[in-house]
């Protein structure tokens, strides 16, 4: 599965409790839609670190980096390129 597919799969099953791909657009704001609360951020970051072997310091835990599927894909790509 692609990185994008894995990220989408995680958000769909863990936050939307469904596998219906049509429920999640790649550019939608996860916070704006209320899909992710404060603990949700923790879950999401744990997933990224576990799944993609990246480390995310506090200052990078921002909505710009985490708030949509597109943003998450870009973050993972950037971190891996840097790592």
């Amino acid at each position, binding site marked *: 599965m692609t990185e994008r597919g894995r990220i989408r799969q995680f958000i769909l099953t863990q936050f939307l*409790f469904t596998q219906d791909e049509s429920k999640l657009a790649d550019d939608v704001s996860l*916070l704006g839609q209320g899909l992710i609360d404060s603990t949700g951020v923790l879950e999401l970051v*744990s997933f990224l670190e576990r799944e993609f072997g990246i480390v995310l310091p506090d200052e990078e*835990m921002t909505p710009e980096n985490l708030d949509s599927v597109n943003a998450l894909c870009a973050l993972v790509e950037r971190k891996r390129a840097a790592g």
Partner: protein
Amino acid sequence: MCGIAGILNLGDAAPPQRETLAAMARPLVPRGPDGAGHFITRDIGLVHRRLSIIDLEGGAQPLTNEDGTIWTIFNGEIFNFVELRRELSALGHVFRTRSDTEVIVHGYEAWGDDMLHHLNGQFAIALWDAPRRRLLLARDRPGILPLFVSTDAGRLLFASSIRSLLAARAHPPALDLAGLDAAFTFWAPTAPQTLFEGIECLRPGEKLVAAGGRITRERFWDWPFDPEAAARPVDERAAAETLRDLLIDATRLRLRADVPVGAYLSGGLDSSVLTTIIARHTDTPLETFSIGFEDAALDESGAQTLMAAHLGTVHHAVTCRREDVAAGFADAVVAAESVLLRAAPVPMMRLSALARGTGFRVVLTGEGADEVLGGYDLFKEAKIRQFWARQPQSKARPRLLSRLYPYLDVNPTRAQAYLEAFFRQGLDAPDAPLFSHQPRMQTTTRLKAFLNPERPWPSPEAAAAAVTAELPAGFARLAPFHRAQLVECRTLLPSYLLSSQGDRMLMANSVEGRFPFLDHRIAEFALALPPHLLMRGLTEKALLKRAMGAALPREIVRRPKQPYRAPGSSAFLSPAHRDATRAHLTPEALQSAGLFQPEPVQRLLTKLEAGGPVGEKDNMALLGILSAQVLHARIVRGDSPGGIGFKPDADSTDSLIGRDAGGGDTPQPRRT
């Protein structure tokens, strides 16, 4: 405290039957374990279950006037009955008992419905004016005590418990979709809505009059918010002294009883103030009751022990474990007759069991101070968001948000950008009526994703629109802080805090709670003050601290406010409770109730069982869904009708409704 129920014929329905009254009385036994009485005619049936507190010998109900024309049953206490009795005696009324109930009857004779304005108390009253064939129902000002109503088959039914009405209704019980939708927005439906189809509650401070087949309802009291208050010049020192005097008097009045009165002690400011007043300003030897948690982040035992030692009270404490919360949840849901999105009521039920087990049937408790005197973090949050909304591009203003919720130590939203993004919700409409409650509503509303889309749910805006429609004229002219207070007083205070977490958890163990901070004189005084006296900057309950701070240990006044919270949902899926939890949430059980989609619920369970961090949203989802399923199984479908608190020996009609206070024979059904 007690339980009441009744049936009024609105037209030519069959006369009320003793057996129906008995069925209505059955769920009221925990509210009134000490006795029963009823009154029945062709027009009306009244039944009363008694918890004896004042005038143990003479206080039986239903109670009537000198010539048997006015009848009343009532749940609650009229704290100023001594003064009212004096006043009414001077007007020539003859009292036959020492009970507070009798001032209602004579007060009605003297003043009509205006009698309600004379009462300082907590009450749900039914009063039958036989010559006028007129029924008056009334509920106390802040909504401490419940009073539910239903029109069904040509009758008006009313009771302290929803289950009493379900027992008498011709229609089979069903959960109300709009009520559930409202609960998944505001934590609980707002009056007059309930979780059950065809059943309403009286609004706090509302009276209902039924006469000549017509029913009218109106508020006889409302929270006295005042648009002029914000600009009113006030001497702060004098205001603090007035508040102190009012609190002492409100507490003194609430110690009136013919049984011992104890107090809950949470370790926070409000209960510390109350217990201090009792200890310093009355002769009552004080016993205090506290709940502790094994989870250090929730536990306040340190502050409780400190206060108890400081005042020299006889202190009783019980520790609530995660397992206890899971074990007690279903019974708490049935007692609450509502969904619970938090487990916090469960420990309150254990606390009332501790008080009752120690021999106490009355406790004073500090609820209401946060609403009336400005204590909640939600008010600070709203204040910061208002301040920020005036300069939405400001970098400095939203930084104040980091001063909120310091107790959430694992909260990664401390990452400032995330915090800002969350609380930015609704910032573009700072004058919206529910601006202050927008973040809470947004979080709660997510639960609706689990609802079964095939059912006719109300529109997404319906719950908020129902609350907005109830707001008083002039609401928009209030100071933003007062708007936040008013919304809180109208929604969460009566519909959750005083009911699911208050009266129902107390009454499940036959204990009466009394709430000095909710004396209407305190509301009428404090809400006429400029809001900055209540919340100075971001210092909550500033005026209360000024009024009472010197009498308290410094550690108590200075400790950061810790909201009362109970353990989350982790124990519900532990080996000991997993099967019980899952039994309510199988695809079959979910389909049978028809409220939720099975697939997402199964995924939620899988996620929670994996044991990762559990967020507020998932926690609320599990408890909200589970509690709705429990309501369906235990109340709608009627599994284990024994339920909580039902005593098998209180089965017969005679034992459930006692003697007929009118002494008349049971009327026979009219031939048709």
